[in-house]
């Protein structure tokens, strides 16, 4: 048996049931990625005899005698393949986990195939980019700037579209993600597989591991008897007390189908799987509840009844109540009574999954000194270290957590989902232990967005004044309360405070159910609440016969207005560092008007009798930093060769913060971004970093980096003055030298001479995440709805963003496009469905459709021109928030087109069709999603 891989003969024999993907990785081709392991995502695409195939479903033995090319073999030595160059030029990636597959697919395309990318790229899923940048890359159209200066790479200072530093590594398949490690670094590596509960709620009576331990290669089986008693939350926050302590590494009670029951550790994945099948577990079934409202009702089985409210920070364990919020500003009843129109409806948002292409994974090992090292796919290495210390009773200096390049996060990796169990095994066995989630485990046993049920009442006067806004919210946190309080509180924050309204009421409760836990998800509660609030605002406007944007202009906050949701006083540390909501609203309104004119002029306004057309909009606000502290620390130094190295804590998962940090430092140092190397996401590098969540990569970590770089710039000038004797005022820092009264002192020489004098040219910067500012996103759609089939066509998609000073326009645009695409999936079809017995039914990507190239329209992206007084060099956050206004804008466009208000997500074609049928039949009460409304405002596009 032999095959040729990238021109080299490989003689190893694949196992009979082995797929080509794992064989290639065993042969060292770590650029071949696993996104789904089921043939759906295309991340593993390689060429066999020149033909592109998905190596995860290609029997390895079939490659015998053939020639295989992986991404590592695409370039000709140092000369990149044209497609690799194009992906670099257009930056056709964010996290880069899908890039190898994209390249190996697109590099086979002829011109005809490039003409039809929806068809020819539908076997390649990207969760980050929204595909626009990929289209530009595949077609070689390079960077398409959104305005004249949008595409300028420049020196890579603030405002330039500097390329991602990892670009070349990403397109050559050499970027190292979590499991892309050299086996030689982990001698004796063991593999873990988990026994998972088939029951939604049960007490474990016994676990018999004897048969499993007899399976050849199985080294150990861990159960709740081996697990520390310390309860914790998988959620990671600066203050661990933000989340309830309700989780054990392995528990004696299982509370959802898919919960860990036991961990089998073996020499190979195959042996671990065999061990899992051999473990015998006896369960005592317990009553279960799958619905949040039912869980809060009297008599429901109490899922965490064994815990104490105060100790474990659960509002009321006996009632499955994790957290609650009740507030009223003004008098809602009076506000509704004073209204000319009142809208009352119940809005529902579904479970959705992050579907980061890289699944959760970690490797834990103990070094010779006895220190625990964990390499993990995480957004929060420092907090995960702290959580591991707390769970296992280890001192901080005895644990190191490192994240390689992370293959997508979206909030899903603001959790400790694998690190605790691999650490447990490594600590017990003193050998390296790896756990890699399957795609199915991602769906059934990681986390989802919190489903919200929102009973909303809102009223407005004929003059367009919002008189009352009241929400009664129930969130479903699933079996564990990770992020339950935070998501509930945050969801009810900016969604309501963006409107001036004298009378606001919030009743919110977060409930446990026996379902897969919900957790942090892009938007952190806002996307759910904004769906309801923006739908309601639109509905009120429609009933008033007022243009919805005009209605918003009358009621949205203006610069300086108090931002109020639940408390009578605004949050002390949330300030208008800048305000661009008014610009965003105008930008979207103008773009929709231009779009409408374009269709008219092209004679495409009338799509035929079955098509109803309409437009819809929605706005959103987000605090630029999470509350209660978000810390970052940067150490930056001049290197002997005259370049810089900045050590930052924050992780890179495609959000582009590495580029941003290099740009901020380059700007402060009058340098170029490519002269600033960034080391990151390793707890040994800096003192602390709260993590890459809450949209903080730029505004918190970036601020620390900017401070460090500014300090260092001063030190460099001072040192140059000291060395040359020229007054500091006459010394000017440049790209590679300090100009001292006309004489250039090269930075390398500066380093040398400073070192000779015992001077270390290094500086530190810190930022604590407060005060905070606000960022805005407004989305607009023009749609056509086929009333005969329910098909929805997006004729125009527009988003305007107030990101302050845009550090990197190309990257920021990419974040927005990616957010829109992900939000379209959640708006249109993504749905983690749970069956009657609590099992997740949509457990592979063919059952959980995420947007493909064919599904995502090109969006117009516009930026407000603002500069933030609080963010680094005027910048604001722009990572979660583009997601938030998309679903309501779409529902509002459908309402405008059809006259039917849809109150439930997702809005798939079948749901739209049936909603229209039911509405015309007049069966509004109790209809699944749609309800007809009276005076509809129709607008021809």
């Amino acid at each position, binding site marked *: 048996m032999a095959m040729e891989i990238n021109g080299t003969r490989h003689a190893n024999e694949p196992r009979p*049931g082995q797929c080509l993907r794992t064989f290639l990785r065993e042969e060292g081709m770590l650029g071949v990625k696993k996104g789904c392991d089921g*043939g759906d995502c295309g991340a593993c695409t390689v060429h066999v005899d020149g033909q592109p195939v998905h190596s995860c479903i290609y029997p390895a033995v079939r490659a015998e005698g053939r020639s295989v090319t992986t991404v590592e073999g695409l370039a000709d030595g140092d000369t990149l393949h044209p497609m690799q160059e194009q992906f670099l030029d257009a930056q056709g990636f964010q996290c880069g986990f899908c890039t190898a597959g994209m390249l190996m697919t697109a590099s086979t395309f002829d011109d005809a195939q490039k003409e039809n990318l929806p068809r020819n790229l539908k076997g390649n899923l990207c969760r980050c980019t929204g595909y626009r940048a990929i289209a530009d890359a595949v077609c070689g159209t390079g960077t398409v700037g959104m305005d004249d200066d949008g595409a300028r790479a420049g020196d890579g200072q603030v405002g330039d579209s500097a390329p991602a530093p990892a670009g070349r590594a990403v397109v050559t398949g050499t970027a190292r993600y979590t499991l892309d490690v050299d086996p030689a670094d982990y001698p004796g590596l063991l593999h873990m597989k988990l026994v998972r509960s088939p029951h939604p709620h049960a007490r474990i009576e016994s676990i018999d591991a004897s048969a499993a331990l007899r399976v050849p290669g199985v080294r150990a089986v861990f159960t709740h008897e081996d697990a520390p008693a310390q309860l914790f939350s998988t959620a990671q926050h600066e203050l661990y007390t933000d989340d309830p302590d309700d989780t054990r590494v392995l528990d004696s009670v299982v509370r959802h189908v898919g919960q860990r029951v036991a961990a089998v550790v073996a020499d190979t994945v*195959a042996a671990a*799987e065999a061990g899992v099948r051999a473990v015998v577990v006896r369960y005592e079934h317990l009553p279960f509840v799958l619905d949040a409202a039912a869980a809060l009702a009297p008599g429901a089985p109490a899922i965490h009844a064994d815990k104490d409210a105060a100790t474990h920070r659960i509002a009321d364990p006996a009632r499955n109540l994790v957290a609650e919020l009740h507030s009223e500003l003004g008098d809602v009843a009076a506000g509704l009574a004073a209204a000319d129109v009142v809208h009352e409806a119940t809005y529902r948002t579904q479970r959705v999954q992050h579907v980061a292409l890289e699944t959760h994974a970690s490797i834990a090992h103990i070094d010779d000194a006895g220190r625990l090292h964990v390499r993990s796919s995480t957004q929060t290495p420092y907090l995960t270290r702290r959580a591991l210390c707390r769970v296992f009773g280890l001192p901080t200096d005895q644990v190191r957590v490192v994240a390689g390049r992370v293959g997508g996060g979206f909030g899903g990796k603001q959790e400790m989902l694998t690190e605790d169990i691999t650490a447990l095994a490594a600590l017990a066995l003193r050998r390296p232990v790896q756990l890699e989630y399957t795609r199915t485990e991602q769906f059934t046993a990681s986390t989802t967005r919190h489903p919200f049920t929102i009973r909303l009442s809102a009223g407005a006067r004929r003059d367009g004044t919002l008189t009352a806004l009241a929400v009664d919210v129930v969130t479903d946190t699933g079996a564990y309360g990770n992020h339950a309080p935070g998501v509930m509180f945050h969801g009810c924050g900016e969604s309501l405070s963006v409107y001036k309204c004298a009378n606001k009421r919030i009743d919110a409760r977060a409930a446990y159910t026996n379902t897969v836990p919900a957790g942090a998800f892009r938007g952190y509660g806002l996307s759910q609440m904004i769906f309801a609030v923006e739908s309601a605002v639109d509905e009120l406007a429609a009933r008033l016969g007022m243009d919805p944007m005009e209605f918003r202009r009358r009621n949205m906050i203006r610069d300086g207005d108090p931002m109020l949701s639940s408390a009578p006083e605004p949050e002390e540390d949330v300030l208008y560092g800048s305000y661009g909501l008014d610009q965003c609203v105008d930008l979207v309104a103008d773009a929709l008007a231009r779009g409408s004119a374009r269709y008219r002029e092209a004679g495409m306004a009338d799509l035929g009798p079955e098509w109803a057309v309409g437009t819809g909009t929605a706005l959103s606000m987000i605090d630029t930093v999470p509350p209660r502290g978000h810390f970052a620390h940067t150490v930056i130094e001049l290197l002997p060769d005259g370049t810089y190295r900045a050590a930052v804590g924050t992780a890179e998962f495609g959000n582009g913060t590495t580029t941003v940090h290099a740009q901020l430092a380059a700007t402060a140092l009058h340098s170029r971004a490519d002269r600033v190397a960034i080391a990151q996401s390793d707890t040994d590098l800096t003192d602390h970093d709260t993590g890459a969540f809450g949209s903080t990569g730029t505004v918190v970590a970036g601020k620390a980096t900017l401070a460090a770089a500014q300090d260092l710039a001063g030190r460099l000038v001072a040192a140059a003055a000291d060395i040359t004797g020229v007054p500091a005022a006459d010394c000017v820092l440049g790209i590679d030298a300090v100009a001292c009264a006309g004489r250039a002192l090269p930075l390398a020489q500066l380093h040398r001479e400073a070192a000779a004098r015992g001077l270390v040219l290094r500086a530190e910067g810190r930022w604590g995440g407060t005060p905070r500012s606000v960022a805005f996103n407004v989305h607009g759609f023009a749609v056509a709805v086929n009333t005969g089939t329910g098909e929805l066509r997006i004729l125009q998609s527009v988003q305007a963003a107030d990101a302050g000073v845009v550090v990197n326009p190309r990257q920021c645009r990419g974040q927005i496009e990616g957010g829109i695409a992900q939000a379209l999936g959640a708006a249109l079809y993504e749905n983690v469905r749970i069956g009657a017995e609590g099992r997740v039914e949509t457990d592979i990507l063919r059952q959980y459709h995420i947007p493909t190239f064919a599904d995502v329209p090109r969006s117009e992206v516009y930026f407000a021109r603002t500069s933030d007084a609080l963010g680094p060099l005027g910048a604001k956050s722009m990572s979660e928030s583009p997601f938030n206004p998309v679903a309501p804008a779409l529902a509002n466009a459908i309402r405008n087109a059809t006259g039917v208000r849809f109150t439930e997500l997702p809005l798939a074609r079948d749901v739209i069709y049936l909603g229209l049928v039911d509405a015309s039949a007049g069966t509004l009460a109790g209809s699944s999603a749609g309800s007809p409304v009276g005076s509809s405002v129709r607008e021809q596009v």
Partner: protein
Amino acid sequence: MDMNTIEELLPTADPAAWRPGDAWLAGGTVLFSYGSSTLRRLLDLGAAGWTPITVDADGIELAATCTIAALYELPDTLPQRLPETDAAPPVWPALALVRQCCDAFVASFKIWNMSTVGGNIATGLPAGPMTSLCAGLDGVATILSPGGGTRTMPVAELVVGDGLTSLAPGELLRSIRLPAHALAARVAYRRLSLSNLGRSGVLLIGRHDGDGTFVLTVTAATQRPVQLRFGTRPDADALDADALVRALDAAIPVSLYHDDIHGLPRWRRDMTYKLAEEIRRELLGGGESAGKEGRHGHGD
């Protein structure tokens, strides 16, 4: 994904070699996609050497191991596949369905390099496009049995439910014959999906044979293929919209509509009626061509 319980990969196409714990390995795109925790051996058809496509005046025979990629090329390569005779080459307008059905795969063209016609049918999915194609063209499957026997069965009857076929353990799908009378027919194709280029929620194929027979094959919408056959006079000619509705009512009980994430049964049912009527009008007349409005759902 790795199939870690597999102990042996045995190159064979002989059903006598089959024993419990074995699975036939064609393209592998289904087996390796879903994985297994019970299978012990894969019987590898990769070396069976079956001619993928054989064409004669009576029709087309597709080997079960014919890849989708090879099938996709068939319409372009038909002339050179015909045996050399003096007779005029057949005119088979129904071949237009081949590419339409290939494009109905949710899987991309890369998968087509591996996955096979037989594998798709044997998987028995309601939305299996090869089931749609072969059932719609009155395809007849040849099945080899472990005992050494051979039997034939219409593809429309081979798939009996969601993921269920009438293949007995160890039986091997050898080939599908598409008869000339169906290939020579006028055909109409309609498909809807919840997402652009996504999995079929409803797929209907209509056929108007030279003898006047009208055949409507419903797949994807229903748990198994449903075929409505209206013979020559007076049936097909007299088939008006109401008669079609009555026929659909009779042929498809509500419980037979498929219920999964790819479409609610009520939607599938209504779309079946809508598309069936479009096809009736297109093939049997009685109104304007429905071709234009029938293109919803193809994504563009």
